[in-house]
């Protein structure tokens, strides 16, 4: 008996949706094996990892707080990737948005009131867009590879943040430690529920999901993105401009990343610090693909990934399990999603060995 992959004439619509579920299922099966090998009760461990974070109000709020930046960035990136443009530098645009948006509460701490936060959010978006415009313009004008330029600019942004909180924007009352002053209450994200940390950023995520969904399904822009992504030549014949699309998708994804950045520092962090993100901009790339570049899929994927972070932490506390386990799960999940994607384009067929005249089984032609 041997297993053959047969290319499908057309990709399987069923598998487009079933393959992520299959990947999750296989991850869970392997998880049970890992837990058992580590001497923990697999069912208890699974419960703590994947269910317990969903059973208490505060940890549900924390789940949302964790998912907001990842999801928001991923939604912007999905537009890029669908149009075959590769913005890898969302982490840098996130940082740029956080820096520019923090201008008001740090440089003008005396200005308080209801207008501060909207101004900050606006500047956050602007910061992300401006920063994303650099690789876009370099590509349009000089044909520079946007994967490299956008990625390299991440490090520039991080070093800029590092310098600015150690130098000009250092808290004057902070004993020289590298942190900005803590933002005034009017410069912080309003909470959705008192006593927790879930903030109105969640609303922005839902708005982004709806707008992108509508754009992709119902507008000419969405159609252009698809055509230029899948058949650039056809797009060119239709008179769609590849260059304009590069700029557009970079500006949108940069703006959303910048918004996520300023919401993060005006929300759960409350000040600028040398490091404000454990790599959300990169995690978002994974989430975008995990969610099939579809806004609703990304929303779900963002929450699933956030859940693995919270579950990993809960398992450390409750079971004394290393945080490496959580990382193994994340890696497994991504690997399996990509592996299961094979099933979208290929069918699995079992072939019985045919006895050959010499008596041995026929092997692959390899």
């Amino acid at each position, binding site marked *: 008996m041997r297993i053959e992959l047969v290319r499908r004439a057309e990709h399987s619509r069923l598998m487009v949706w079933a393959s992520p579920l299959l990947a999750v299922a296989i991850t869970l099966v392997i998880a049970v094996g890992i837990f058992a090998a580590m001497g923990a009760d697999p069912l208890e461990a699974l419960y703590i990892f994947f269910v317990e974070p969903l059973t208490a109000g505060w940890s549900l709020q924390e789940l949302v*707080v964790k998912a907001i930046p990842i999801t928001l960035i991923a939604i912007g990136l999905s537009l890029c990737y669908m149009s075959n443009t590769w913005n890898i530098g969302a982490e840098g645009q996130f940082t740029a948005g956080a820096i520019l948006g923090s201008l008001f509460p740090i440089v003008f701490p005396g200005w308080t009131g209801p207008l501060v936060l909207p101004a900050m959010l606006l500047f956050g978006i602007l910061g992300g867009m401006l920063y994303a415009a650099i690789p876009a313009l370099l590509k349009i004008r000089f044909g520079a590879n946007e994967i490299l330029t956008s990625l390299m600019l991440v490090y520039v942004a991080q070093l800029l943040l590092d310098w600015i909180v*150690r130098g000009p924007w250092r808290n004057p009352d902070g004993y020289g430690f590298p942190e900005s002053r803590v933002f005034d209450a009017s410069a912080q994200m309003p909470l959705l529920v008192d006593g927790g940390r879930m903030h109105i950023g969640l609303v922005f995520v839902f708005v982004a999901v709806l707008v992108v969904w509508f754009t992709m399904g119902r507008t000419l822009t969405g159609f252009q993105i698809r055509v230029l992504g899948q058949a650039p030549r056809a797009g060119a014949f239709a008179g769609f401009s590849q260059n304009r699309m590069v700029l557009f998708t970079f500006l949108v994804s940069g703006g959303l990343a910048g918004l996520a950045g300023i919401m993060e520092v005006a929300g*759960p962090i*409350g000040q600028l610090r040398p*490091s404000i993100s454990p790599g959300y901009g990169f995690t978002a790339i994974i989430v975008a693909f995990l969610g099939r570049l579809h806004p609703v899929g990304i929303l779900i994927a963002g929450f699933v990934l956030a859940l693995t972070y919270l579950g990993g932490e809960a398992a*450390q*506390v409750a079971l004394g399990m290393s*945080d490496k386990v959580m990382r193994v799960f994340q890696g497994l999940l991504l690997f399996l999603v990509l592996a299961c994607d094979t099933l979208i384009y290929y069918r699995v067929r079992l072939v019985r060995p045919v006895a050959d005249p010499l008596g041995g089984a026929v092997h692959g032609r390899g």
Partner: protein
Amino acid sequence: MRRLMTAAAAVLALGMGLGAAAAQDKLKVGFIYIGPKNDGGWTQRHDVGRQELEAALGDKVETTYVENVPEGQDAERAIERLARTGHKLIFTTSFGYMDPTLKVAAKFPDVKFEHATGYKTAPNVSTYNSKFHEGRYVIGQIAAKMSKTGQAGYIASFPIPEVVLGINAFLLGAQSVNPDFKLKVVWVNSWFDPGKEADAAKTLFDQGVDVITQHTDSPAPLQIAEERGMHGFGQASDQIAFAPKAQYTSIIDNWGPYYIRRAQAVLDGTWTSGQVWGGFADGHVVLAPFTNLPDDVVKMAEETEAKIKSGELNPFAGPIYKQDGTEFIPAGKVIDDGTLLGMNWYVKGVDDKLPQ
């Protein structure tokens, strides 16, 4: 048969109930770590302290740790999780956890918090740190005795007061032996980056330095010293295994005694908020066995350590001159702790411009 089962179930339930009651009497102590618990440096020393706490207080405590917690939004959640899962004493072991610790502490007034290396306190939040600079003064003296070129190299992490303080203490120690001693500094802008730390060590040796020390956590610089036949000092833990011929001694972070004292205070109901900055005398800072050193240098180092311990010697006793030669504090006076904790200037003799 059924009755037997019921009885067994009852016994089991009773047993579990008792177990739960006993568990409640235990003090649950939680730790938040910035790195992996076996990082070979900062975090590992906190984890050793945690293990010493368990060993010392046995059944009376139960400890938990969460490792690799980034200093962003995640810190607050990790700390809150410990507070919500019955931990009554929580140690947060990195500077960036300062504000998250205070935020969670405000929500859980009956939980005691201890934040390492920060400066903000609350009725249920203490801070603690160690006077590593006492150790650095001693190794500065050793460096000045052993160096043939009259200059040492210092691999520094970030230009924050604690690190600047360490650089100054090292050089003041060295100048107490050789007033013309010079110090070169390389900033690697990381607490742990073996590649950059190794490059920094190579650069320093290439510039004619023959002894190095560091305020970063990896053993890489000492390994370079070993390769080049040069010498240096370990950081955070005894790194003699990495550099048996190069290490003179190492400044060891020793948190165990403090953790035991504070947990005992919670058990006794005598815990109060405060700011602890312990050095040799409190057992916070320990020097690894002196190796690769002649007897007279060992004797000098031991004497200096004893003098600092007894209070006879203060590394920051005047006269102390700033880098530009102006006198900061005259003879007969000492720089107070508050000034030391905010130190953002070099003493005379540092061959570097302090990043501002």
